């Protein structure tokens, strides 16, 4: 039960970090692709989704592992 609570806490805290990171990367892509007339809307949307998804995949495990480590260190282990 305690472990579940701990995991939930890790998941919440991690999401607060990796979601903005992925959204930021996707936004950056959108900005770069938004040169007027350069790319069709669908390509931009597709690119935003793909870059966002890959950024999420990269940041999620990194952030989760780090947050878990930090929280674990703060929590009593017996």
């Amino acid at each position: 039960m305690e472990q579940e609570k701990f995991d939930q806490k890790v998941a919440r805290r991690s999401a607060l970090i990796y979601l903005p990171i992925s959204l930021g990367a996707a936004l950056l892509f959108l900005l770069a692709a938004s040169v007027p007339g350069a790319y069709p809307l669908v390509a931009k949307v597709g690119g935003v989704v793909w870059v966002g998804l890959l950024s999420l995949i990269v940041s999620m495990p990194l952030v989760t592992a780090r947050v878990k480590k930090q929280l674990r260190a703060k929590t009593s282990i017996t």
Partner: protein
Amino acid sequence: MGKKDEAQLSLPIVGMSCASCVSHVEKALQELPGVSNTVVNLATNKASVVYDPQQVRLVDFQRAVDNAGYAVASSELTLDVRGMTCASCVAHVEGALKELPGVLDVAVNLGLGTGHVRYVPGVVNANQMKRAVREVGYEANERNDAADSLDRERQAREEEIKRQGRNLLIAGTIGIIVMIGTFYDMLGPFKSIVPVWLSYKWVIGLLTTPLIFGPGRQFFVNSWRGLKHGVTDMNLLYATGIGAAYGIAVINTLFPNAGFGGEGATFFESAALLTAFIVLGRWLEALTRGRTSEAIRKLMKLQPKIAHVIRDGNETEIPADEVEVGDLILVRPGESIPVDGSVKDGYSAVDESMLTGESLPVEKRIGDAVIGGTFNKTGAFRFEATKVGKDTALAQIVKLVEDAQASKAPIQKLADWVAGHFILGVHLLAILVFVFWFFIGYAAFFDPNSSFILSPYALGEIGVFGFSLLLSVTVLVISCPCAVGLATPSAMMAGTGKAAEYGVLFKGAEAIENASKLNSIVFDKTGTLTKGEPSVTDVFVNTQARIGGSDELLRLAASAEKYSEHPLGEAIVRGAETQALTLNEATAFNSNPGHGIEARVENHNVLVGNRKLMAEHGVDFYSLIPHAERLEGEGKTVMFVAVDGQPGGLIAVADTLKEFSAEAIQRLHKLGLETVMITGDNRRTAEAIARQVGIDHVLAEVLPQDKAEEVKKLQARGKRVAMVGDGVNDAPALAQADVGIAIGSGTDVAKETGDVILIKDDVRDVIVTLEIARATMRKVKQNLFWAFVYNTLGIPLGAGLFYPFFSLVVSPELAGAFMAISSVSVTLNTLLLKRFRPSLRHNERQLTPNRDSGKSPLSPAVVSSK
């Protein structure tokens, strides 16, 4: 430090016996930075520590307690871990276990599907470990004894083969149909037998969907489980690749005008064939990986199922595992020996090749030891069981080989680390590839006539997003480091198993790696290169004395020494017995310690001893001195014999070389190794032995406790040193060496120190050890080379590096096929190690025991009677 940052831990302590121990342990722990309070309880043998986890860790506690002369109690546990497919899985499972408080060390073996954990009992338990493994997406169970786990491992492997076989059948069938449908226009004369509706995009989509959500489901489920807990593995690469191809194909089919490339850019066949190829790879891996651990299975199969026990005078057939120590067991010709024991009556020849690698049958007489699992060939005998169950030699050997296979070589740790971090790197690369082709590459290099490698399918109307996505997905799929993860453990498993077949037991993968790098071999002299007991080498008769000849001189001296307990005297008696000389009783025996003996034999006064003894009795022995000095120059111990006050002659005694010592040293030189002999003997004796055997360097007059220091000196000169010696007496030197080789331990392997144990007392097995280690590491390096070559070439190819020059791209399905081929080829390359034979006694040894083969008759020279 605020209270909220503190943690508390209760450590079990070993070795405390009094209150001062308590204060020592308390002090040791209290001195660590970050420890605010320590209470040690002698009654419970526990230390309760309040500490700041940011400043101090469990390993620091362990080290502090160790340094204080005590120990933190630790236990070991092996988990069977299922669902691991690659090196990153290994890293995840290890990471999950290491994160648990109380876990000291973890070694996960992908090939065996095991996790070996050293932990502090009371701080963490097996259930927590299993839960931690399950949380990162794998199944874990506690391992029981070897036989059970072997059965379970086999069962799990068979289930996996069956499961992936089923998946392959579905994925392969649908994949082929989808491919036929996709390339309908190119079928030529075969077009008439394929219904046209099979080429409709929505039909292809309908066919692909169950494939993605059936056989392909495992990749999505596993990667999501991992992601939730902050870990990534190969499944994520597959899931992203398959998911992207399928998602775009669905959009382009349902909404062809959405701008993703329309119907010309549906990737259903990519998604379908990619899944089929990955499943094919999984199935082939499951098939081949199990074969690398066959050695253990072979050993386990040696365990006989039944025993004929004599109880109350009656023979009863009982299961072998019900035999108890002290039971009397009957073994007939053609039967296997059920447990370890000692022969009580009867005589036979036993084939021990399956355990010791010795190709010739070994004679067994009353009092000789027999090993469970070996095969009785010629006669019937009865023996008393001395070791049963887990204590038998076979069980110990199986455990040792299992432990070795579960351990990790340094090279493997590096490969696992690389593979573990590779996945995220690949996803980052996939972003970069996508961004490059989206913003720069497409506009600069895209050619509408370009096509996929090995495919007539032109890219045609694909848009900037579709093209960039295609290359990005291909990078994900082609980069899978499965081959890197399999390269080392599969070879180590095959190598340790192969070594065990020849009676060479490596205690860990590190020993194999170290043994392959050696350049200097240090041999203990006594008992390793020499027989360890002196024997008569020369008998010189004074021609002026009235003695019949050398036999007569030896007979008189041996009769005088008949009851001597001095090793030199015993050597003379043995020498006479070997010559079948008849000894008479001596009267008036008198021993003069440090000088020799005086006795009356057949009415003659016989003196046997050194110069001092002769001088004391006024014997004029000076004519013998030149001969004595010559023999002493050869490292022999010379005894003067006088008969009735006259110098009768000399008897030289020396520790003689073992039969194959010189051959072994010669072979080692051929392998390019420097040889060193270390001994407590005086330099002259040591050098004489070294000359006979062909040793390069001699370290003489070294006390047993200084042998380790000598090994250290060699290491300080940059040598990578193996020490070959007695596993008990030479233990410190064996421990100091880069590789400690304990020789001639027999089958009581559990007692041995050293990194390598040679079951037989044959120094030539050192060469077998080196050859197997070198062959194994060669295989590891080949595997790693090919695995990295595959990725090094595959990634730029997949990323479209060569596209501007050739207008060709790798399709995701082709990338999937490459990936499958890479991991299967690594495993197949490892399986070639099964054909390895040591160069030495190549024709004498067998790869597998062949019980029916008519082996050569017993030869007195090689029959051992233990």
